């Protein structure tokens, strides 16, 4: 997974705000999932279940 460089929105050029697009590449998903699960370790179980449901249906876990 990588994040592209901050997408340059016209507004960013005027230094009013900075907008960033997060681009996730599936090639790095195993490490990402491991870190995400660790982060959810202390979270409520409903949140962890929601996360795991997304991972299963997205095919990222396979």
């Amino acid at each position: 997974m990588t994040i592209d460089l901050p997408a340059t929105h016209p507004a960013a050029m005027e230094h009013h705000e900075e907008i960033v697009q997060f681009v996730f590449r599936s090639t790095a998903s195993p490490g990402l999932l491991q870190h995400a699960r660790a982060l959810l370790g202390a979270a409520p179980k409903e949140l962890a279940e929601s996360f795991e449901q997304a991972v299963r249906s997205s095919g990222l876990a396979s």
Partner: protein
Amino acid sequence: MPHKIVVTLHGIRTRGQWQKQITPYLARHGLIPYHLDYGFFGLVSFLVPWARASRVQWLRSELRDLMDRTGARRVSLIAHSFGTWLALEVLEAENGNIRFDRVVLTGSIVRRDFPWGATLLRKRWIQALRNERATGDWVVRAADLFSRLAGPIAARAGASGALGFTTACPGVHERSIDGGHSEVLNIANYDKWARFIAYPRLPDDHLRRVRMLVQQIRALAASQLGVDVDLVRANIFVPNANALRMIPGAWDNMTWAPEHDIELELDHGSTGRAFTDGTPFSIRRLGATWTAGVLPGPEQAKLNPRLQWVLSLPIGRIVTRDELTVARDVVGVLNVDGLDTVPPLLQTPGDPTLKTLVFTLWASTEKIRESLALADTGEPLHDD
């Protein structure tokens, strides 16, 4: 969000007893019923073109009058049988001058190839459709047969109330039961129709679950970003009448009331971009105010002036395509945002810790997606 008006319209050879029965179900979801009655309309009248045309003119006049008197720009509709045909004849005849919000067709005799792609998606004459059909409905099949055999006097009718539409597209929801023309008017369905029309206002079952997840996501974001949880808020925007608007109540710590009515353009700012692109975006303010490209003036005036940053997570089916992970069939955007200061982590977009956090929060919206998708069709929350 103003209360929606729901016009009900009966079919032929009846005065619509169901219209009276459905009133409490509509009221329960904050909807305002408006029952129309064009009198007893017999089968012979249905076969006569001028008799049908006179009812179309009557409905045009009734709807214009209703919208003039209430100031409503759109009304929702529940129609049965000939009422379905009348409503869509009016829609086409008015060519966009009368538009419906959310429509329930029951025992529909509308032609099966009705152009939903143009009507619903492109022209937005209707926001969403639920077609409640019965597989054993011989009345709609007879209407279809009449339409085929009667030549120039035929109504442009079809068996969509039994067989569904051949032109389905996103926003068209088909539901089917075993039974006949009147059984589709089953009282067990009334609550679902009311829920469908009330959307994006969420019924209690969905709202409880969505709000709980929103609270949990906000708390996780605040702890991982290392900021005071009181300075972090969360809310959900969904498309509603050509703009993105907040779902009432599906928020946490949104105490600045004017923000509840903010309208965002579909591709503006991080919320609009997340909705159209299906990937997370963040935005942080560098200047004294937000620019018009992010938020036009009238909407900016509603914004909490302390807002400094927003993390926008598209709520959709997360899939992997061409090695990219994106959200498809996006139903809305969950915004986690913050007041007063920008957390240091958000100022370093390439930081792996931030990447992990954004992905974790994003994927954790899955059960919110599930609830919004169900609520959009009028269906209740299923037990896990």
